């Protein structure tokens, strides 16, 4: 046992640096986590946050000179290994909880730790079930040890993987639980369940290092926060001293106002897309008008049908009924190709699986929606394609600045710029954006906003779905709120602030809409 000193620091790193091929991604990082606190680690993509976590896990070897100390185990950072991390009591749970859907809860808990065995090496199922039940009770997970993990709700799966990581820890006061973006793929109501559980664990004395992009979550949950920017630790503060704005300033290193481009003074009255009584999936009669040159934000909780709305307009989800007009002409897309012909473009939410062709070059990714343009004289005009692609790489500041780079090796922000450029080069009449800045660093984010504004200035109209209310408020000219499959409220002018939009989305008995 470690004796609790005045400070009682459980985890401490000093002078931690990491260099990849001459590029310093982490410099002299100092992280200090006190026993029993929830310590948030914040920073944009490329800030060195993931690198720091991987160094702590022993996955990356740090540069020599640094030191890592966990519960009195102290070692030079370049000698830190996964085994040392484990022995020192660091437990990692990642965004994807890595549980096994087809197996039971009890089996999932036993995997990696070992089953209790009876004579002859066979598994003693009753003993395993009893042990599992005890663990589930300790972590307040209200499921049966016999339940199939596939049938658990998402938050419970994450809680299960936390339980699995911590099951061997004697008391709640030992060790550090490192949670890496645990809520990134959870719907909002699941996040609430998970956060409630985390609060309970923390109250029992569990030390938690919490990595997340979601500021409201951090403000709600954490005791202290360490912010990284460009590989440097910019601040460690008590959360009580901070609000969302000051956190954004710490992450972005500049004033919030300058992240977003100015909104143009006027939007034309001409209607580009009109939707009446749209029924598709969870949508039960959506009415909206999108004006030419307008950014129309779509707010709503997950499951409200935001993504369905975009996909229906892009012909990817069957429209059951409704009257749609695009630039005055009837519009009823049956598949993405017909929506594209009518001038609609969509940047999907899941960039990795549905936007990017990871194994193809940036050039091929940029051309993906305009291949027939290069088909002339019986062959693809590769020279013309290459020079167009280079021009786009330049215009969108894609790094590395090569149209031949393999798209999957780019950072998230650069991948998203490539997907944006692929669609914007078509000068779409209507651009559908689904979470366009998810997993994108602050710098690329403001570049993406800039490109959206430029497209709008050229006459495109944008339908923007995002769960980031700040983004919604600053980028949209007008916002509609989806609730229960319908447009439940509309916000414009003075109502376009994150607070108000959050209220409109969350509060179902909103009368002033």
């Amino acid at each position, binding site marked *: 046992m470690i004796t609790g000193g005045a400070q009682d620091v459980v985890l401490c790193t000093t002078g931690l640096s990491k260099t990849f091929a001459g590029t310093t991604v982490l410099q002299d990082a100092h992280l200090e986590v006190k026993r029993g606190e929830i310590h948030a680690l914040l920073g944009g993509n490329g800030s060195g946050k993931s690198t720091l976590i991987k160094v702590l896990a022993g996955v990356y070897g740090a540069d020599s000179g640094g030191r890592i100390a966990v519960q009195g185990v102290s070692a030079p950072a370049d000698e830190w290994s996964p085994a040392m991390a484990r022995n020192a009591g660091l437990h990692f749970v990642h965004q994807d909880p890595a549980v096994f859907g087809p197996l039971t809860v009890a089996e999932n808990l036993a995997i990696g730790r070992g089953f209790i065995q009876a004579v002859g090496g066979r598994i003693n199922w009753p003993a395993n079930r009893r042990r599992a039940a005890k663990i589930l009770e300790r972590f307040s997970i209200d499921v049966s040890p016999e339940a199939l993990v596939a049938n658990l709700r998402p938050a419970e799966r994450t809680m299960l993987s936390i339980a699995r990581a911590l099951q061997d820890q004697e008391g709640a006061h030992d060790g550090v639980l490192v949670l890496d973006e645990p809520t990134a793929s959870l719907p909002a109501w699941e996040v609430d369940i998970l956060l409630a559980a985390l609060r309970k664990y923390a109250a029992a004395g569990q030390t938690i290092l919490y990595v997340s992009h979601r500021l409201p979550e951090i403000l709600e949950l954490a005791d202290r926060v360490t912010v990284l920017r460009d590989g440097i630790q910019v601040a460690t503060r008590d959360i009580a001293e901070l609000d969302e704005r000051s956190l954004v300033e710490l992450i972005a*290193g500049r004033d919030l106002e300058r992240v977003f481009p100015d909104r143009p003074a006027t939007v034309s009255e001409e209607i580009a897309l009109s939707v009446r009584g749209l029924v598709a999936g969870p949508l039960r009669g959506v009415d909206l008008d999108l004006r030419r040159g307008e950014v129309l934000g779509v707010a709503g909780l997950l499951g409200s049908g935001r993504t369905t709305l975009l996909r229906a307009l892009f012909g990817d989800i069957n429209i059951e009924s409704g009257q749609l007009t695009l630039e005055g002409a009837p519009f009823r897309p049956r598949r993405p190709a017909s929506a594209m012909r009518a001038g609609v473009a969509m940047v999907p939410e899941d960039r990795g699986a549905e936007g990017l062709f*990871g194994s193809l070059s940036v050039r091929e990714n940029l051309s993906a929606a305009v291949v027939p343009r290069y088909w002339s004289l019986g062959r693809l005009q590769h020279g013309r394609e290459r020079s167009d692609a280079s021009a786009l790489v330049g215009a969108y500041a894609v790094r590395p600045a*090569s149209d031949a780079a393999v798209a999957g090796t780019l950072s998230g922000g650069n991948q998203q710029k490539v997907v944006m450029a692929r669609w914007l080069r078509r000068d779409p009449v209507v651009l559908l954006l689904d979470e366009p800045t998810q997993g994108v660093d602050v710098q690329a984010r403001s570049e993406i906003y800039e490109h959206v504004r430029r497209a709008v200035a050229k006459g495109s109209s944008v339908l923007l779905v995002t769960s980031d209310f700040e983004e919604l408020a600053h980028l949209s000219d007008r916002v509609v709120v989806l609730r229960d499959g319908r447009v439940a409220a509309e916000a414009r002018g003075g109502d376009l602030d994150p607070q108000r939009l959050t209220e409109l989305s969350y509060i179902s008995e909103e009368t002033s809409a």
Partner: protein
Amino acid sequence: MTTTTQPDAHHAEPLVSPKRGRPDPAVLLEKYALAGMFILLCVVFANMSSTAETFPTVANIKNVLGGESVIAIAALASILPLTCGQFDLSVGAVIGLSSIVGASAVATHDLPVAVAVLAGVLAGSLVGAFNGWLVAYRGVNALIATLGTSTLVAGLVSLYTDNQIISVGIPESLTNLGAGDLLGIPRPVYAIAIVALFVYYLLRHTPYGRYLASVGASPSSARLVGLNVPRMILSSFVLSGALSGIAGILLLARAGTANPQVGPGFTLAALSAAFLGATAIRPGTFNVPGTLLGVLFVAISVNGLVLAGTADWVEPTFNGVALLVAVTLSTAIARRRAGQT
């Protein structure tokens, strides 16, 4: 702009593409390693005492080129479904089917040679269409679907022929296609050249080829740039079947007989060549020059070993090793390209 001077992980990369300037030696090595090994093997066999007399002769080279024509066309057929991410294990069975259909058309039904060729190609296309329907529209795993069709086709061929070789009544106008030289080059080489040019053109110079590669890279992304993914997959199997049909006719022309037993044996040899090809010229991508190089590499190795008088077990063992090495290497290259290591 940010005011920081610290390089950030993704902003610090070189501004100039390494591809434009001087080629990276590692990249060159990867591209031409297979070609280098091929040349090295040729030099070894030409100088090794046991093969020095027979290997570097015109007759032997013609024999290898002619003998590999069926496998070469089958390998070229298989890279179309492979490019859109699907295995076709039925190329061999289709070769057998097409040679039987062609032989039966001319020998049993006295049809003109042109009709026999068309019938063989059509039979292959139909099998391909069935494969494609199963995979693209019924969601069956391509390995299982094509293994199933392959077995089914072999069974039906056996039923139709009663396992008898069709050897009587194959006209000379057909066997002439597979035998002899034209301008000093074996006739089957022209068939390879035509099919190779066709597949190369399709994959590299038409939107269709780009679409196949897109579907192979990410079916969901392909759907969301407006491609009809099931139709692409179906068409790649139909083309693979049709080209295998051509390979079957070529087999018939070269052998002068149609043997209901030989077809399925071509599948693994074709896939070996295709995967070896994906390690060369355009590493990580199934490509035509690489595939041809793969065919030649395996052919020359086996030819040299046979001439050196090695035992019967050497050829299948070598083919097996070649396939495993090829698949392992091409997978590693593709993963590294996608930044997954």
